């Protein structure tokens, strides 16, 4: 009887503990300054919050965004301005302010924000919140913003935070050391050079295979030395399709645009889409310029011993990475495997590289032509309205008041203005074309990388030591958890 009572109270205590255990999600987002805090980042963060709310289970949100709840403007939105005198577009074209002329600024509309991301404020807040986590809790850190590269050491790669402050991999590692090692900490980094943050799983963020004591794993949009697909200030949803777009679409079951996703991301069919499965979905479906990776994948790359490197690089194991490589090849109209795939990929890469070179050449020569055209028209404008050349002055204010319409009419009637417009529009179109070619090249890189990962996984199964398997298993079990 007494034994039963003890058993009952113990199970009640355990039950209470599991009730008290909670999932915590930290979202850190926004740019380092107004000009780099694009509306796309804000929309991304809002969408992630929506995905988190839409998924079953309760979780505590801790959102940090740009200047926090300060009323200042901290988001820039770009929309193509109308071609009219009212939008000052003729003047903007001649004075090379076309981009700035399409920008508008506002204070962010991100819900649940508890603070800003300025490093001096963010660091103590994270330290405080991280130290409250207890065994049974789970942590997820999502960063949506910009990053910088340290060419000497990937542990020096940084998150670019508000007010042009930053947080390096090493600093974040120290902050995360406040978390109880029993708590699984997952992170999703979507910025440029995000692969450097893979070091968070190693002791003191060192360049080593060994895992630290903490239970950490993560997903990254790019490697430690590559830029992620650009953060456009545009809000045209179809325009941006970075890693997070596909990663969170897998977790929600819908694309950001609302349509249901066509491929089931639940690869193991257990009814739950894990973060690892979401990552695999992003790998397979992402038609973008990102080459994403997870901590298990980087672990495999780090693990590969010298005697297996470059060996049998034509092998095609039929594991998950091999399957995704075939899927991506099929999606891109390539043979799925074999020498035919390798041959066709080489040919296509060559063609794309040539196309990219000619686009970049055209961009460079167009830049020079535009400079000459603008200064020619500007010279004619300045001959009649010299005040137009001195912004931020009383002269300029008077010019805007009295002569703006006449000056813009003059510009519109200028014999070289039509040429300027055509060339500026061509330059904008060229940016798009470069992005498309870059995306196509990245798909080829992705197929190669997936085939390499397939071989690595197969080699790992044959050659890894018990300790290495234990480390890999730890990472995999961390990545394999759901939201």
């Amino acid at each position, binding site marked *: 009887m007494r034994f039963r009572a003890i058993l009952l109270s113990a199970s009640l205590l355990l039950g209470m503990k599991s009730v008290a255990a909670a999932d915590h999600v930290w979202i850190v987002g926004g740019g380092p300054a107004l000009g780099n805090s694009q509306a796309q980042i804000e929309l991304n963060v809002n969408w992630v919050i929506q995905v988190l709310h839409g998924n079953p289970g309760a979780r505590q949100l801790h959102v940090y965004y740009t200047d926090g709840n300060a009323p200042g403007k901290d988001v820039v939105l770009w929309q193509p301005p109308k071609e009219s005198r009212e939008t000052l577009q003729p003047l903007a074209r001649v004075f090379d302010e076309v981009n700035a002329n399409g920008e508008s600024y506002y204070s962010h509309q991100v819900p649940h924000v508890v603070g800003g991301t300025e490093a001096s404020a963010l660091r103590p807040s994270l330290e405080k919140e991280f130290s409250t986590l207890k065994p049974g809790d789970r942590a997820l850190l999502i960063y949506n913003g910009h990053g910088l590269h340290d060419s000497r050491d990937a542990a020096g790669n940084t998150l670019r935070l508000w007010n042009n402050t930053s947080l390096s991999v090493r600093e974040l590692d120290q902050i995360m050391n406040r978390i109880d090692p029993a708590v699984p900490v997952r992170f999703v980094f979507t910025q440029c050079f995000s692969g450097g943050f893979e070091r968070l799983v190693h002791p003191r963020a060192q360049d080593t295979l060994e895992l630290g004591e903490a239970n950490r794993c993560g997903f990254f949009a790019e490697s430690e030395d590559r830029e992620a697909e650009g953060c456009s200030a545009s809000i045209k949803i179809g325009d941006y399709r970075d890693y997070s777009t596909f990663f969170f679409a897998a977790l929600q079951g819908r694309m950001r645009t609302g349509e249901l996703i066509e491929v089931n991301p639940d690869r193991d069919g257990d009814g739950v889409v894990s973060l690892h499965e979401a990552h695999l979905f992003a790998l397979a479906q992402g038609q973008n310029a990102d080459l994403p990776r997870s901590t298990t994948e980087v672990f495999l790359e780090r693990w590969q011993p*010298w*005697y297996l490197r*470059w*060996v049998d*690089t034509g092998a095609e194991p039929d594991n998950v990475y091999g399957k995704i490589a075939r899927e991506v090849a099929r999606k891109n109209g390539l043979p799925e495997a074999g*020498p035919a795939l390798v041959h066709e990929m*080489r040919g296509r*890469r060559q063609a794309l590289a040539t196309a990219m070179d000619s686009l970049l050449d055209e961009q460079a020569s167009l830049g020079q032509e535009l400079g000459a055209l603008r200064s020619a028209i500007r010279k004619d404008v300045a001959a009649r309205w010299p005040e137009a050349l001195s912004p931020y002055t009383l002269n300029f204010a008077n010019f805007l008041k009295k002569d703006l319409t006449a000056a813009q009419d003059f510009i519109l009637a200028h014999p070289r203005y039509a040429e300027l417009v055509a060339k500026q529009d061509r330059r904008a179109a060229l940016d798009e074309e470069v992005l498309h070619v870059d995306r196509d090249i990245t798909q080829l890189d992705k197929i190669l990388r997936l085939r390499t990962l397939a071989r690595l996984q197969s080699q790992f199964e*044959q050659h890894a030591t018990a300790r290495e398997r234990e480390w890999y298993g730890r990472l995999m079990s961390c990545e394999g958890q759901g939201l």
Partner: protein
Amino acid sequence: MPWQRKKRRKSKKRPPLLPYILIPPAVYAVHVFLLFLLDSVRGDGLMLHQYLNESRGGLVRQLVSDGWRALPVFYAASLLLWFEVRLLSRFLHWRGVVSAAIAGAATGWLLAFFLIGKSMAVVIPYTISGLLMAAVLGRIAQPPAARKRR
């Protein structure tokens, strides 16, 4: 002079150390070149891809760091092959480059087959490296008189 004669005899018996030091790195360089050829002709062309499209510095760093790890193994393999060549010539009287090369190829093949992988693409570079290393060792181990007779 007696002391002069003694000195000459000593220098005659001194083993040629330099070739033994140089053979493993040279064979490793050939081994990497073989891997490059196989990777370019029969594989995904990863080495060339990394050189042309990714980080050239990264490729060089990778090769250097792999080289440091590989060299002790290549030195150990050269020691093993040297023993094999000596044993063959002493007990079976199989002297010369050809028998040494066959023994080296067989050793390289066996080591690669059982320790690394069973596919031809894995085994071939190690077999050729073993063959090359043992052939050079067999050539060096041959007494000068035997070399002259040939």
